[in-house]
């Protein structure tokens, strides 16, 4: 065999997997992490909590990945894909954790189906069973829209994960520690683009302000408290988002001040009877997103991928 392609096919059997994005390797991403649920922790609550945080990451990642091959330049295309990959990695760990904590949350599949739990959760739940905030699911708009969405999302999620590093649940602490590094970069990237668009041209500033106005009503949900969050915060497992509110507000105000953009004064988006995304009550956008995301998996409930 010719040397030229002999060496290349080494990639089929070996190769350094560290150079690839997290979770694209051929190994179990959860390998080596202690998955025992700590004593005294309510399994159903832990599962519900992991699904909320996991669904936030999954649905954001799905929206961000829609940008692939559509960004303003190649460098930004690559950056958005990196962020989507980070969040997808977080989602996988969290969904797998939910399934391990309380297998009841995993949708039933045909007898003998090889579909792993993380995929059963991602592809075989309906919209009402997703616990993500509504900010993550709204349809994409222009580049200003994705920057504002990512800024609001990453400022909150970073503040949350920083605190979650102290969770008594080993897996959550592990996911949080990894996520903090990632979210630090996402927040920095989004904030930097926020400043750029605010200080760029008339056009970019107009688009930015419009996007901020459109998305602002979704922001309060990021720092609102669901009963499960409160309960798990008391148990030392989770974080009450309300405790991040001051920090989140401070950081956003700093970005607004530096970019000379006024903090919008639009009221929060109402839920229905007090129910919001965390309770499974979503916008119309989510079912459309799921229809696309789940179509192949649902056509092959016993498929192997």
């Amino acid at each position: 065999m010719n040397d030229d392609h002999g060496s290349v096919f080494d990639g089929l059997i070996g190769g350094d997997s560290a150079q690839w994005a997290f979770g694209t390797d051929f190994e179990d991403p959860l390998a080596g992490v202690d998955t025992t649920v700590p004593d005294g922790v309510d399994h159903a609550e832990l599962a519900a909590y992991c699904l909320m945080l996991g669904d936030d990451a999954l649905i954001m990642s799905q929206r961000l990945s829609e940008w692939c091959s559509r960004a303003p330049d190649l460098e930004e295309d690559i950056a958005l894909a990196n962020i989507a990959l980070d969040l997808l990695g977080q989602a996988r760990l969290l969904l797998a954790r939910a399934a391990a904590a309380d297998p009841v949350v995993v949708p039933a599949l045909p007898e003998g189906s090889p579909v792993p739990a993380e995929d059963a959760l991602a592809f075989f739940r309906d919209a009402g069973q997703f616990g993500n905030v509504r900010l993550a699911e709204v349809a994409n708009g222009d580049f200003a829209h994705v920057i504002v969405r990512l800024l609001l999302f990453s400022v909150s999620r970073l503040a949350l994960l920083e605190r979650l590093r102290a969770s008594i649940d080993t897996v959550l602490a592990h996911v949080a520690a990894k996520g903090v590094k990632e979210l630090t970069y996402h927040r920095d990237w989004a904030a930097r683009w926020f400043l750029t668009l605010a200080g760029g041209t008339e056009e970019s500033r107009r688009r930015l302000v419009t996007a901020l106005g459109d998305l602002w009503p979704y922001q309060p949900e990021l720092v609102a408290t669901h009963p499960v969050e409160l309960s798990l915060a008391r148990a030392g497992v989770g974080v009450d988002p309300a405790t991040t509110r001051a920090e989140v507000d401070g950081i956003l105000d700093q970005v607004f001040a530096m970019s000379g953009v006024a903090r919008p004064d639009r009221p929060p988006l109402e839920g229905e009877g007090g129910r919001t995304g965390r309770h499974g009550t979503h916008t119309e956008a989510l079912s459309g997103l799921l229809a696309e995301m789940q179509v192949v998996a649902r056509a092959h409930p016993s498929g192997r991928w």
Partner: protein
Amino acid sequence: MSADRREWPLYEVFVRGKRGLNHVHVGSLHAPDDAMALRHARDVYTRRNEGVSIWVVRTDAITASSPDEKDPLFAPNGDKVYRHPTFYEIPENVPHM
């Protein structure tokens, strides 16, 4: 000015893969300014590998020698590392496979 607005400037990227090694030229990219070039370099050339050190420098800030610079013929353009005056305009309606 209007030409500058159309395209972000080119940057050269140097990466120190690990401690004890020199920064090595790995390639180039476009960015609106230095700060963004650094972010782009991280995304494009290091796959966000933590702990490596990155230098970026605008390509037009590099002064280079020519391999043949002993030859005075080449002195006049000895300070431009990348722009070459010849731009080849491909005629229309010619297949290029």
